[in-house]
């Protein structure tokens, strides 16, 4: 009985796996900003959004002033 139950569990699970894995993941999964970045190793965190913000943040708006050393 034990073997039948676990055998059935294995067969049903394999059936689910082979059918479900061919389906694209839901939009809730794919349309996220915090998805994993497989291009970099996990220990090297790279936040492109924040990098972009940082670089744009370097532009200081306003008029330039000449600095006199005297």
């Amino acid at each position: 009985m034990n073997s039948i139950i676990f055998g059935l569990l294995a067969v049903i699970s394999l059936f689910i796996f082979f059918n479900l894995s061919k389906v694209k993941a839901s939009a809730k999964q794919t349309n996220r900003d915090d998805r994993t970045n497989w291009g970099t190793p996990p220990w090297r965190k790279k936040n492109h959004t924040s990098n972009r913000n940082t670089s744009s943040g370097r532009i200081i708006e306003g008029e330039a002033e000449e600095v006199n050393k005297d």
Partner: protein
Amino acid sequence: MARHAALETFGRSGNPVFGNKFNNSQGFVGSERMTLDGTVNKTGFLLGLCFFGAIISWNIPNPFLMFGGALVGFGLAIYTSFVPRNAGITAPIYAFVKGLFLGGISLVLEMQYPGIAIQAIGLTFGTLASLLFFYKSGLIKPTENFRLMIFSATFGIMILYLVSFVMSFFGSGIGFIHSNGIFGIGFSLFVVCIAALNLVLDFDFIEQGAENSLPKYMEWYGAFSLMVTLIWLYLEILRLLAKLRSR
């Protein structure tokens, strides 16, 4: 993920496996690309080979087959991790020789605890199907922090196993890893959870690889990584069940 977003993310990578492919994605126009269907079919093929190896080892018990399979499998896993381009050749051999090992180890435990092998198989595939459902539906969302956490835990477990293995040569060892006490069972449960969560990372890698049209050989690599995790999960479930049954 939209194509431009993928290029933004992967295009600047320093990883030669991914970075170059995304930088030169124009060069893949007309050539074959990674798909979900292809990866799933290859996973099925590898699973079949693994079962075939296990059936041979189960019916012809031989320590040489078992430990030979484990050693060759380990070597192939390391090689394939660094040279994914050859995964089409190494992954099927890996699946077969690991099957030889799994068949042997399952038979040894089956003789001690009847019915344990089918329980471990059922629980492994049950975990696979349920986590796939959670991933596809978006209930589990792997992020960079999630990946870092799972990577750290997996690396920690690997170091612990390595230290225990080396200590065993000197007649010593880390006792609680193999004990059937509360700590031993708790440790095994933790390792099973980490192995199961590695499946989520594999699903995410395959999904993103298909979205971003990686080259065709990455289907083999995706299927191979799924097989490595599944085999690890099966072994840990087998060990956990053996601990529970030996109490």
